[in-house]
Protein backbone atom coordinates (compact mmCIF):
# COMPACT_ATOMS: atom_id res chain seq x y z
CA UNK A 1 0.00 0.00 0.00
CA UNK A 2 1.26 3.52 -0.72
CA UNK A 3 2.45 5.48 2.29
CA UNK A 4 0.31 8.53 2.96
CA UNK A 5 1.75 11.95 3.54
CA UNK A 6 0.26 15.40 3.58
CA UNK A 7 0.88 17.74 0.66
CA UNK A 8 0.86 21.52 0.59
CA UNK A 9 1.19 24.40 -1.81
CA UNK A 10 4.51 25.96 -0.86
CA UNK A 11 5.24 28.43 -3.67
CA UNK A 12 3.19 30.47 -6.11
CA UNK A 13 4.01 32.93 -8.88
CA UNK A 14 2.20 34.90 -11.53
CA UNK A 15 4.04 36.82 -14.24
CA UNK A 16 2.83 40.06 -15.71
CA UNK A 17 -0.50 39.36 -17.43
CA UNK A 18 -1.10 41.54 -20.47
CA UNK A 19 -2.95 41.42 -23.75
CA UNK A 20 0.35 41.02 -25.60
CA UNK A 21 3.73 40.41 -23.98
CA UNK A 22 6.92 40.81 -25.95
CA UNK A 23 8.19 37.48 -24.66
CA UNK A 24 8.24 33.84 -25.66
CA UNK A 25 6.04 31.21 -24.05
CA UNK A 26 9.19 29.37 -22.97
CA UNK A 27 10.63 32.40 -21.27
CA UNK A 28 7.38 33.12 -19.43
CA UNK A 29 7.13 29.54 -18.20
CA UNK A 30 10.73 29.57 -17.00
CA UNK A 31 10.13 32.86 -15.20
CA UNK A 32 7.08 31.40 -13.50
CA UNK A 33 8.81 28.18 -12.46
CA UNK A 34 11.79 30.04 -11.04
CA UNK A 35 9.49 32.52 -9.35
CA UNK A 36 7.37 29.85 -7.67
CA UNK A 37 10.43 27.95 -6.50
CA UNK A 38 11.94 31.14 -5.09
CA UNK A 39 8.63 31.87 -3.32
CA UNK A 40 8.94 28.43 -1.75
CA UNK A 41 12.61 28.78 -0.91
CA UNK A 42 13.36 25.75 -3.11
CA UNK A 43 15.55 25.28 -6.17
CA UNK A 44 15.14 23.53 -9.51
CA UNK A 45 17.31 20.71 -8.17
CA UNK A 46 14.56 19.94 -5.63
CA UNK A 47 11.93 19.34 -8.32
CA UNK A 48 11.03 15.73 -9.09
CA UNK A 49 7.68 16.23 -10.81
CA UNK A 50 6.06 18.55 -13.33
CA UNK A 51 2.52 19.26 -14.48
CA UNK A 52 1.75 21.50 -17.39
CA UNK A 53 1.02 21.70 -21.08
CA UNK A 54 3.36 21.96 -23.97
CA UNK A 55 3.55 25.08 -26.04
CA UNK A 56 6.57 23.65 -27.82
CA UNK A 57 5.63 21.95 -31.06
CA UNK A 58 8.82 19.96 -31.18
CA UNK A 59 8.15 18.17 -27.89
CA UNK A 60 4.88 16.27 -28.19
CA UNK A 61 5.11 15.29 -24.56
CA UNK A 62 5.44 18.04 -22.03
CA UNK A 63 7.58 16.02 -19.66
CA UNK A 64 10.24 15.34 -22.27
CA UNK A 65 11.12 19.00 -22.40
CA UNK A 66 11.24 19.48 -18.65
CA UNK A 67 13.25 16.33 -18.01
CA UNK A 68 16.10 17.57 -20.16
CA UNK A 69 15.64 21.25 -19.30
CA UNK A 70 16.00 20.43 -15.62
CA UNK A 71 19.25 18.62 -16.32
CA UNK A 72 18.63 15.08 -17.45
CA UNK A 73 17.46 13.31 -14.31
CA UNK A 74 14.38 11.20 -13.68
CA UNK A 75 11.11 12.93 -12.93
CA UNK A 76 8.86 10.64 -10.95
CA UNK A 77 5.60 12.48 -11.50
CA UNK A 78 4.29 14.02 -14.68
CA UNK A 79 0.88 15.29 -15.67
CA UNK A 80 0.12 16.65 -19.10
CA UNK A 81 -2.53 19.25 -18.64
CA UNK A 82 -4.72 20.22 -21.49
CA UNK A 83 -7.61 22.63 -21.42
CA UNK A 84 -9.91 19.79 -20.60
CA UNK A 85 -7.75 18.14 -17.99
CA UNK A 86 -7.15 20.44 -15.04
CA UNK A 87 -5.87 17.72 -12.68
CA UNK A 88 -5.01 20.22 -9.96
CA UNK A 89 -5.15 17.69 -7.18
CA UNK A 90 -3.24 14.93 -8.89
CA UNK A 91 0.19 16.12 -7.85
CA UNK A 92 -1.03 16.10 -4.25
CA UNK A 93 -2.11 12.50 -4.76
CA UNK A 94 1.33 11.61 -6.12
CA UNK A 95 3.10 13.39 -3.28
CA UNK A 96 0.77 11.80 -0.76
CA UNK A 97 1.59 8.38 -2.15
CA UNK A 98 5.31 9.02 -1.89
CA UNK A 99 5.98 9.17 -5.61
CA UNK A 100 7.35 12.70 -5.64
CA UNK A 101 8.42 15.29 -3.09
CA UNK A 102 8.23 18.52 -5.07
CA UNK A 103 5.99 19.08 -8.10
CA UNK A 104 5.83 22.23 -10.18
CA UNK A 105 2.62 23.11 -12.05
CA UNK A 106 3.15 25.67 -14.79
CA UNK A 107 1.59 27.22 -17.84
CA UNK A 108 2.56 30.29 -19.80
CA UNK A 109 1.69 31.62 -23.20
CA UNK A 110 2.69 34.50 -25.41
CA UNK A 111 1.74 35.51 -28.92
CA UNK A 112 -1.14 33.09 -29.34
CA UNK A 113 -4.80 33.88 -28.96
CA UNK A 114 -7.29 31.46 -27.43
CA UNK A 115 -10.39 33.21 -28.69
CA UNK A 116 -12.24 33.65 -31.96
CA UNK A 117 -9.69 36.11 -33.33
CA UNK A 118 -7.02 33.46 -33.03
CA UNK A 119 -8.49 31.44 -35.87
CA UNK A 120 -6.91 32.56 -39.13
CA UNK A 121 -8.57 32.09 -42.49
CA UNK A 122 -6.60 29.21 -43.92
CA UNK A 123 -5.51 28.94 -47.54
CA UNK A 124 -7.79 26.00 -48.05
CA UNK A 125 -10.75 24.43 -46.37
CA UNK A 126 -9.66 22.60 -43.21
CA UNK A 127 -10.75 18.97 -42.92
CA UNK A 128 -12.44 17.71 -39.75
CA UNK A 129 -15.32 15.58 -38.56
CA UNK A 130 -18.60 17.21 -39.61
CA UNK A 131 -19.73 17.30 -35.97
CA UNK A 132 -16.60 19.11 -34.82
CA UNK A 133 -17.19 22.31 -32.89
CA UNK A 134 -15.58 24.39 -35.60
CA UNK A 135 -17.46 22.86 -38.52
CA UNK A 136 -20.47 25.16 -38.13
CA UNK A 137 -18.46 28.24 -37.25
CA UNK A 138 -18.51 27.37 -33.58
CA UNK A 139 -16.06 28.27 -30.87
CA UNK A 140 -16.28 28.27 -27.09
CA UNK A 141 -18.42 31.42 -26.75
CA UNK A 142 -21.09 30.00 -29.07
CA UNK A 143 -21.52 26.90 -26.93
CA UNK A 144 -21.60 28.80 -23.67
CA UNK A 145 -24.08 31.16 -25.35
CA UNK A 146 -26.38 28.25 -26.28
CA UNK A 147 -26.02 26.92 -22.75
CA UNK A 148 -26.86 30.35 -21.34
CA UNK A 149 -29.91 30.69 -23.56
CA UNK A 150 -31.18 27.27 -22.51
CA UNK A 151 -30.60 28.16 -18.86
CA UNK A 152 -32.41 31.49 -19.27
CA UNK A 153 -35.31 29.70 -20.99
CA UNK A 154 -35.65 27.09 -18.24
CA UNK A 155 -35.13 29.28 -15.18
CA UNK A 156 -36.08 32.80 -16.24
CA UNK A 157 -32.65 34.36 -15.77
CA UNK A 158 -31.96 37.54 -17.73
CA UNK A 159 -28.99 39.21 -19.36
CA UNK A 160 -28.97 41.60 -16.41
CA UNK A 161 -28.55 38.60 -14.11
CA UNK A 162 -25.50 37.46 -16.05
CA UNK A 163 -24.07 40.98 -16.13
CA UNK A 164 -23.99 41.05 -12.31
CA UNK A 165 -21.14 38.55 -12.42
CA UNK A 166 -19.03 40.73 -14.71
CA UNK A 167 -19.70 43.75 -12.49
CA UNK A 168 -18.71 41.94 -9.29
CA UNK A 169 -15.56 40.36 -10.69
CA UNK A 170 -14.44 43.69 -12.15
CA UNK A 171 -14.93 45.23 -8.74
CA UNK A 172 -12.59 42.65 -7.24
CA UNK A 173 -10.10 43.28 -10.05
CA UNK A 174 -9.93 46.97 -9.13
CA UNK A 175 -8.35 45.81 -5.87
CA UNK A 176 -5.82 43.57 -7.68
CA UNK A 177 -2.98 45.54 -9.26
CA UNK A 178 -1.91 42.44 -11.24
CA UNK A 179 -5.24 42.24 -13.08
CA UNK A 180 -5.65 43.18 -16.72
CA UNK A 181 -8.84 45.16 -16.23
CA UNK A 182 -8.69 46.52 -12.69
CA UNK A 183 -7.07 49.73 -13.84
CA UNK A 184 -10.05 50.43 -16.12
CA UNK A 185 -12.31 50.88 -13.10
CA UNK A 186 -15.71 49.54 -12.18
CA UNK A 187 -18.26 48.16 -14.63
CA UNK A 188 -22.00 48.78 -14.50
CA UNK A 189 -24.70 46.44 -15.74
CA UNK A 190 -25.35 48.95 -18.56
CA UNK A 191 -21.66 48.78 -19.53
CA UNK A 192 -21.93 45.01 -19.86
CA UNK A 193 -25.19 45.05 -21.82
CA UNK A 194 -23.88 47.87 -23.99
CA UNK A 195 -20.68 46.04 -24.88
CA UNK A 196 -20.68 44.42 -28.29
CA UNK A 197 -22.39 41.10 -28.78
CA UNK A 198 -20.09 38.15 -29.26
CA UNK A 199 -22.62 35.31 -29.45
CA UNK A 200 -26.12 36.09 -28.25
CA UNK A 201 -26.89 36.39 -25.40
CA UNK A 202 -23.23 36.89 -24.43
CA UNK A 203 -21.67 40.31 -24.76
CA UNK A 204 -17.97 41.13 -24.70
CA UNK A 205 -17.95 41.64 -20.94
CA UNK A 206 -19.77 38.35 -20.40
CA UNK A 207 -16.69 36.63 -21.80
CA UNK A 208 -13.29 35.86 -20.33
CA UNK A 209 -10.22 37.80 -21.31
CA UNK A 210 -7.71 36.46 -23.84
CA UNK A 211 -4.16 37.43 -23.02
CA UNK A 212 -0.54 36.47 -22.49
CA UNK A 213 0.99 35.50 -19.18
CA UNK A 214 2.24 32.68 -17.01
CA UNK A 215 1.59 31.13 -13.62
CA UNK A 216 3.25 28.42 -11.58
CA UNK A 217 2.78 26.81 -8.21
CA UNK A 218 4.74 24.23 -6.27
CA UNK A 219 3.26 21.33 -4.29
CA UNK A 220 5.49 19.62 -1.75
CA UNK A 221 5.40 16.82 0.78
CA UNK A 222 4.91 17.80 4.40
CA UNK A 223 8.53 17.28 5.49
CA UNK A 224 9.68 19.59 2.67
CA UNK A 225 6.79 22.04 3.15
CA UNK A 226 7.63 22.67 6.79
CA UNK A 227 11.09 23.89 5.73
CA UNK A 228 9.85 26.27 3.02
CA UNK A 229 9.75 30.04 3.25
CA UNK A 230 6.08 30.49 4.00
CA UNK A 231 3.31 28.78 5.94
CA UNK A 232 2.22 25.66 4.01
CA UNK A 233 -1.23 25.75 2.46
CA UNK A 234 -2.43 22.15 2.93
CA UNK A 235 -4.35 20.32 0.23
CA UNK A 236 -7.01 18.55 2.31
CA UNK A 237 -9.35 17.43 -0.45
CA UNK A 238 -9.47 17.24 -4.19
CA UNK A 239 -11.20 15.48 -7.03
CA UNK A 240 -11.48 15.46 -10.80
CA UNK A 241 -14.21 14.27 -13.14
CA UNK A 242 -14.89 14.28 -16.86
CA UNK A 243 -18.15 13.69 -18.68
CA UNK A 244 -18.06 15.27 -22.10
CA UNK A 245 -16.03 15.47 -25.26
CA UNK A 246 -14.83 18.78 -26.66
CA UNK A 247 -18.02 20.60 -27.62
CA UNK A 248 -19.62 17.91 -29.73
CA UNK A 249 -21.95 15.66 -27.73
CA UNK A 250 -24.91 17.15 -25.85
CA UNK A 251 -27.40 15.06 -23.92
CA UNK A 252 -30.88 16.14 -22.95
CA UNK A 253 -31.41 17.61 -20.46
CA UNK A 254 -28.32 19.79 -20.82
CA UNK A 255 -28.88 21.27 -17.38
CA UNK A 256 -30.01 18.70 -14.88
CA UNK A 257 -30.87 18.34 -11.23
CA UNK A 258 -28.39 15.51 -10.78
CA UNK A 259 -25.63 17.82 -11.91
CA UNK A 260 -22.54 17.39 -14.01
CA UNK A 261 -18.86 16.67 -13.47
CA UNK A 262 -18.79 19.88 -11.44
CA UNK A 263 -21.27 18.63 -8.86
CA UNK A 264 -19.36 15.38 -8.55
CA UNK A 265 -16.01 16.96 -7.81
CA UNK A 266 -17.55 19.40 -5.36
CA UNK A 267 -19.19 16.63 -3.38
CA UNK A 268 -16.12 14.41 -3.41
CA UNK A 269 -13.64 17.08 -2.37
CA UNK A 270 -15.90 18.43 0.38
CA UNK A 271 -16.36 14.91 1.72
CA UNK A 272 -12.63 14.26 1.73
CA UNK A 273 -11.94 17.51 3.51
CA UNK A 274 -14.80 16.94 5.93
CA UNK A 275 -16.20 20.41 5.36
CA UNK A 276 -19.51 22.07 4.59
CA UNK A 277 -20.15 25.10 2.42
CA UNK A 278 -20.45 27.50 5.32
CA UNK A 279 -17.02 26.45 6.60
CA UNK A 280 -15.38 28.06 3.57
CA UNK A 281 -13.84 31.53 3.88
CA UNK A 282 -12.96 32.13 0.24
CA UNK A 283 -13.32 30.47 -3.15
CA UNK A 284 -12.16 30.88 -6.72
CA UNK A 285 -14.45 29.35 -9.33
CA UNK A 286 -13.96 29.07 -13.08
CA UNK A 287 -15.66 32.08 -14.68
CA UNK A 288 -14.90 31.69 -18.38
CA UNK A 289 -18.28 33.33 -19.02
CA UNK A 290 -20.73 35.00 -16.67
CA UNK A 291 -23.18 32.10 -17.06
CA UNK A 292 -20.50 29.66 -15.93
CA UNK A 293 -20.10 31.35 -12.56
CA UNK A 294 -23.82 31.18 -11.88
CA UNK A 295 -23.97 27.52 -12.86
CA UNK A 296 -20.89 26.69 -10.79
CA UNK A 297 -22.52 28.10 -7.67
CA UNK A 298 -25.48 25.79 -8.29
CA UNK A 299 -23.46 22.71 -9.20
CA UNK A 300 -21.07 23.12 -6.30
CA UNK A 301 -24.05 23.30 -3.97
CA UNK A 302 -23.88 26.90 -2.75
CA UNK A 303 -27.47 27.28 -3.93
CA UNK A 304 -30.14 25.23 -5.68
CA UNK A 305 -30.51 24.64 -9.40
CA UNK A 306 -32.18 27.66 -10.98
CA UNK A 307 -31.37 29.94 -8.06
CA UNK A 308 -27.84 30.89 -9.05
CA UNK A 309 -28.71 34.32 -10.39
CA UNK A 310 -30.65 35.24 -7.26
CA UNK A 311 -27.89 33.88 -5.03
CA UNK A 312 -25.32 35.97 -6.90
CA UNK A 313 -27.50 39.09 -6.68
CA UNK A 314 -27.69 38.67 -2.91
CA UNK A 315 -23.97 39.49 -2.80
CA UNK A 316 -22.67 36.41 -1.00
CA UNK A 317 -19.69 36.13 -3.34
CA UNK A 318 -18.56 39.73 -3.10
CA UNK A 319 -15.77 40.78 -0.77
CA UNK A 320 -17.55 41.36 2.51
CA UNK A 321 -20.09 38.64 1.76
CA UNK A 322 -20.31 35.18 3.28
CA UNK A 323 -18.15 33.49 0.61
CA UNK A 324 -16.03 35.94 -1.39
CA UNK A 325 -15.25 34.41 -4.79
CA UNK A 326 -12.75 35.28 -7.50
CA UNK A 327 -11.12 37.97 -5.41
CA UNK A 328 -8.40 38.35 -8.08
CA UNK A 329 -11.00 39.39 -10.64
CA UNK A 330 -11.31 35.97 -12.23
CA UNK A 331 -11.03 35.04 -15.86
CA UNK A 332 -13.42 37.88 -16.60
CA UNK A 333 -11.27 40.70 -15.26
CA UNK A 334 -7.90 39.37 -13.96
CA UNK A 335 -6.48 37.14 -16.71
CA UNK A 336 -7.19 34.31 -19.11
CA UNK A 337 -3.82 33.19 -20.40
CA UNK A 338 -5.09 30.16 -22.31
CA UNK A 339 -4.83 27.57 -19.57
CA UNK A 340 -5.90 29.09 -16.34
CA UNK A 341 -6.04 26.20 -13.91
CA UNK A 342 -3.32 27.62 -11.70
CA UNK A 343 -5.05 30.93 -11.03
CA UNK A 344 -7.66 29.60 -8.56
CA UNK A 345 -4.97 27.65 -6.66
CA UNK A 346 -2.72 30.67 -6.53
CA UNK A 347 -5.32 33.22 -5.47
CA UNK A 348 -6.77 30.97 -2.76
CA UNK A 349 -3.23 30.27 -1.54
CA UNK A 350 -2.48 33.98 -1.38
CA UNK A 351 -5.72 34.57 0.51
CA UNK A 352 -4.95 31.86 3.05
CA UNK A 353 -1.45 33.27 3.51
CA UNK A 354 -2.85 36.77 4.11
CA UNK A 355 -1.01 38.27 1.12
CA UNK A 356 -3.93 39.92 -0.66
CA UNK A 357 -3.78 43.45 0.70
CA UNK A 358 -6.86 45.51 -0.21
CA UNK A 359 -8.69 42.40 -1.45
CA UNK A 360 -7.82 40.25 1.56
CA UNK A 361 -10.60 38.23 3.14
CA UNK A 362 -9.87 38.78 6.85
CA UNK A 363 -8.86 35.63 8.70
CA UNK A 364 -9.22 33.30 5.70
CA UNK A 365 -8.15 29.76 6.68
CA UNK A 366 -10.21 27.49 4.37
CA UNK A 367 -10.67 27.90 0.64
CA UNK A 368 -11.97 26.18 -2.50
CA UNK A 369 -10.09 26.32 -5.80
CA UNK A 370 -12.11 25.14 -8.77
CA UNK A 371 -11.25 24.85 -12.45
CA UNK A 372 -12.80 23.18 -15.45
CA UNK A 373 -12.63 22.57 -19.15
CA UNK A 374 -14.16 20.58 -22.00
CA UNK A 375 -17.68 21.11 -23.17
CA UNK A 376 -19.30 23.51 -20.63
CA UNK A 377 -19.06 21.70 -17.25
CA UNK A 378 -17.52 18.74 -19.02
CA UNK A 379 -14.33 18.34 -17.01
CA UNK A 380 -13.74 19.70 -13.55
CA UNK A 381 -11.25 19.77 -10.69
CA UNK A 382 -11.84 21.01 -7.18
CA UNK A 383 -9.25 21.40 -4.45
CA UNK A 384 -9.86 22.31 -0.82
CA UNK A 385 -7.00 24.26 0.77
CA UNK A 386 -6.41 25.02 4.43
CA UNK A 387 -3.93 26.73 6.70
CA UNK A 388 -3.45 26.24 10.40
Amino acid at each position, binding site marked *: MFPQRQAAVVGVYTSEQARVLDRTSDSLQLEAVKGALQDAGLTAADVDGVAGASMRGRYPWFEQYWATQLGGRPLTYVQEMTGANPGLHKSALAVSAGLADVVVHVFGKANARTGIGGHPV*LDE*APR*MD*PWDLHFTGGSYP*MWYAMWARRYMHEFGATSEDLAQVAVAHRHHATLNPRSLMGGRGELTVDDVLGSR*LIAEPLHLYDCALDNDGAWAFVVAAAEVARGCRKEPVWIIGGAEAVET*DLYMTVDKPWIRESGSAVRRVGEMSFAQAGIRHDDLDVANLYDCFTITMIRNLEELGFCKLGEGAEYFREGHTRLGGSIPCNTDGGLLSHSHNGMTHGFPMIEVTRQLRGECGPRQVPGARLGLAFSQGASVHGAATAVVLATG
Partner: protein
Amino acid sequence: MTSSSTAAPMPYRKPLPAIADDNKPFLDGLRRHRFLVPKCGACGDYSWIPHPACRSCLSEDLTWTPVSGDATVYSFTIAHRGPGAFALDVPYAIVLGELVEQPRPCLVVGNLVGALPGVLEIGMPIRIGYHDVPEHDATLWHWTTRA
Protein backbone atom coordinates in the same frame (compact mmCIF):
# COMPACT_ATOMS: atom_id res chain seq x y z
CA MET B 1 -4.47 40.67 -72.33
CA THR B 2 -8.19 41.13 -71.94
CA SER B 3 -9.76 40.46 -68.54
CA SER B 4 -12.13 37.55 -68.14
CA SER B 5 -15.81 38.45 -68.14
CA THR B 6 -16.44 36.34 -65.07
CA ALA B 7 -14.26 36.47 -61.97
CA ALA B 8 -12.90 33.21 -60.59
CA PRO B 9 -15.12 31.97 -57.73
CA MET B 10 -13.85 32.46 -54.17
CA PRO B 11 -12.21 29.23 -53.03
CA TYR B 12 -14.21 27.45 -50.33
CA ARG B 13 -12.41 27.96 -47.04
CA LYS B 14 -14.92 26.75 -44.49
CA PRO B 15 -14.41 23.31 -42.96
CA LEU B 16 -15.01 20.19 -45.01
CA PRO B 17 -15.52 16.66 -43.75
CA ALA B 18 -12.44 14.56 -43.16
CA ILE B 19 -13.39 11.25 -44.74
CA ALA B 20 -12.68 8.24 -42.53
CA ASP B 21 -13.88 4.65 -42.49
CA ASP B 22 -16.13 5.29 -39.55
CA ASN B 23 -17.90 8.34 -40.98
CA LYS B 24 -17.99 7.45 -44.68
CA PRO B 25 -21.49 5.94 -44.51
CA PHE B 26 -22.73 9.11 -42.89
CA LEU B 27 -21.13 11.31 -45.56
CA ASP B 28 -22.52 9.08 -48.31
CA GLY B 29 -25.92 9.51 -46.68
CA LEU B 30 -25.61 13.28 -46.85
CA ARG B 31 -24.84 13.03 -50.55
CA ARG B 32 -28.17 11.23 -50.96
CA HIS B 33 -29.86 13.86 -48.78
CA ARG B 34 -30.33 11.43 -45.94
CA PHE B 35 -29.33 12.12 -42.34
CA LEU B 36 -28.11 8.85 -40.87
CA VAL B 37 -27.85 8.29 -37.12
CA PRO B 38 -26.41 5.15 -35.50
CA LYS B 39 -29.25 3.07 -34.04
CA CYS B 40 -28.52 0.21 -31.70
CA GLY B 41 -29.65 -3.29 -32.65
CA ALA B 42 -29.51 -4.42 -29.03
CA CYS B 43 -31.41 -1.69 -27.17
CA GLY B 44 -32.93 0.45 -29.93
CA ASP B 45 -31.42 3.76 -28.81
CA TYR B 46 -29.97 6.33 -31.16
CA SER B 47 -26.50 7.69 -30.37
CA TRP B 48 -25.34 11.18 -31.38
CA ILE B 49 -22.64 12.12 -32.12
CA PRO B 50 -21.67 8.82 -33.75
CA HIS B 51 -19.57 6.64 -31.47
CA PRO B 52 -18.03 3.22 -32.07
CA ALA B 53 -20.54 1.69 -29.63
CA CYS B 54 -24.04 2.44 -28.44
CA ARG B 55 -23.96 5.20 -25.84
CA SER B 56 -26.67 3.49 -23.84
CA CYS B 57 -25.56 -0.15 -23.74
CA LEU B 58 -22.10 -0.32 -25.38
CA SER B 59 -23.24 -2.76 -28.06
CA GLU B 60 -21.35 -2.47 -31.34
CA ASP B 61 -24.43 -3.69 -33.25
CA LEU B 62 -25.08 -0.25 -34.75
CA THR B 63 -26.84 0.54 -38.01
CA TRP B 64 -26.75 3.88 -39.78
CA THR B 65 -30.49 4.72 -39.80
CA PRO B 66 -32.14 7.56 -41.71
CA VAL B 67 -34.13 9.95 -39.53
CA SER B 68 -36.98 12.15 -40.67
CA GLY B 69 -34.92 15.31 -40.33
CA ASP B 70 -37.66 16.86 -38.21
CA ALA B 71 -36.58 18.51 -34.99
CA THR B 72 -37.27 21.34 -32.57
CA VAL B 73 -34.93 24.09 -31.46
CA TYR B 74 -33.34 23.07 -28.14
CA SER B 75 -31.12 26.12 -28.05
CA PHE B 76 -29.33 28.49 -30.39
CA THR B 77 -26.98 31.43 -30.56
CA ILE B 78 -26.37 34.19 -33.05
CA ALA B 79 -22.66 34.69 -33.58
CA HIS B 80 -21.49 38.26 -34.07
CA ARG B 81 -17.85 37.32 -34.31
CA GLY B 82 -16.91 34.29 -36.36
CA PRO B 83 -13.70 32.27 -36.47
CA GLY B 84 -11.69 31.90 -39.66
CA ALA B 85 -13.76 31.95 -42.85
CA PHE B 86 -16.96 32.45 -40.84
CA ALA B 87 -15.96 36.00 -40.05
CA LEU B 88 -17.64 37.11 -43.27
CA ASP B 89 -20.94 35.48 -42.38
CA VAL B 90 -21.77 37.36 -39.20
CA PRO B 91 -24.35 37.49 -37.88
CA TYR B 92 -25.07 33.79 -38.31
CA ALA B 93 -26.97 31.30 -36.21
CA ILE B 94 -25.80 28.04 -34.70
CA VAL B 95 -28.74 25.89 -33.70
CA LEU B 96 -28.85 22.89 -31.38
CA GLY B 97 -31.80 20.92 -32.74
CA GLU B 98 -33.49 18.02 -30.94
CA LEU B 99 -34.46 15.31 -33.41
CA VAL B 100 -38.02 14.08 -33.00
CA GLU B 101 -36.87 10.47 -33.03
CA GLN B 102 -36.82 8.54 -29.79
CA PRO B 103 -35.47 6.82 -27.78
CA ARG B 104 -32.51 8.80 -26.50
CA PRO B 105 -32.98 12.25 -28.02
CA CYS B 106 -30.27 13.40 -30.38
CA LEU B 107 -29.10 17.01 -30.18
CA VAL B 108 -27.59 17.98 -33.51
CA VAL B 109 -25.69 21.19 -34.22
CA GLY B 110 -26.14 23.01 -37.51
CA ASN B 111 -26.23 26.46 -39.03
CA LEU B 112 -29.54 28.07 -39.91
CA VAL B 113 -30.14 28.52 -43.63
CA GLY B 114 -33.11 30.02 -45.42
CA ALA B 115 -34.39 32.12 -42.54
CA LEU B 116 -33.17 35.12 -40.59
CA PRO B 117 -31.60 34.33 -37.20
CA GLY B 118 -34.14 36.60 -35.54
CA VAL B 119 -36.96 34.10 -36.10
CA LEU B 120 -35.37 31.51 -33.83
CA GLU B 121 -37.11 30.54 -30.61
CA ILE B 122 -36.58 27.56 -28.35
CA GLY B 123 -39.17 24.91 -29.17
CA MET B 124 -39.91 25.98 -32.74
CA PRO B 125 -40.02 23.29 -35.42
CA ILE B 126 -37.06 22.94 -37.76
CA ARG B 127 -35.86 20.34 -40.20
CA ILE B 128 -32.62 19.23 -41.77
CA GLY B 129 -31.74 20.59 -45.17
CA TYR B 130 -28.78 19.84 -47.39
CA HIS B 131 -26.43 21.91 -49.49
CA ASP B 132 -23.64 20.92 -51.83
CA VAL B 133 -20.10 22.19 -52.03
CA PRO B 134 -19.66 21.20 -55.66
CA GLU B 135 -15.98 21.95 -56.12
CA HIS B 136 -15.21 19.59 -53.25
CA ASP B 137 -17.78 16.89 -54.01
CA ALA B 138 -19.24 17.29 -50.54
CA THR B 139 -22.81 17.60 -49.28
CA LEU B 140 -23.37 19.17 -45.90
CA TRP B 141 -26.43 19.63 -43.72
CA HIS B 142 -28.05 22.67 -42.12
CA TRP B 143 -31.19 23.55 -40.21
CA THR B 144 -34.09 25.31 -41.84
CA THR B 145 -37.52 26.33 -40.62
CA ARG B 146 -40.42 23.91 -40.78
CA ALA B 147 -44.06 24.94 -40.85
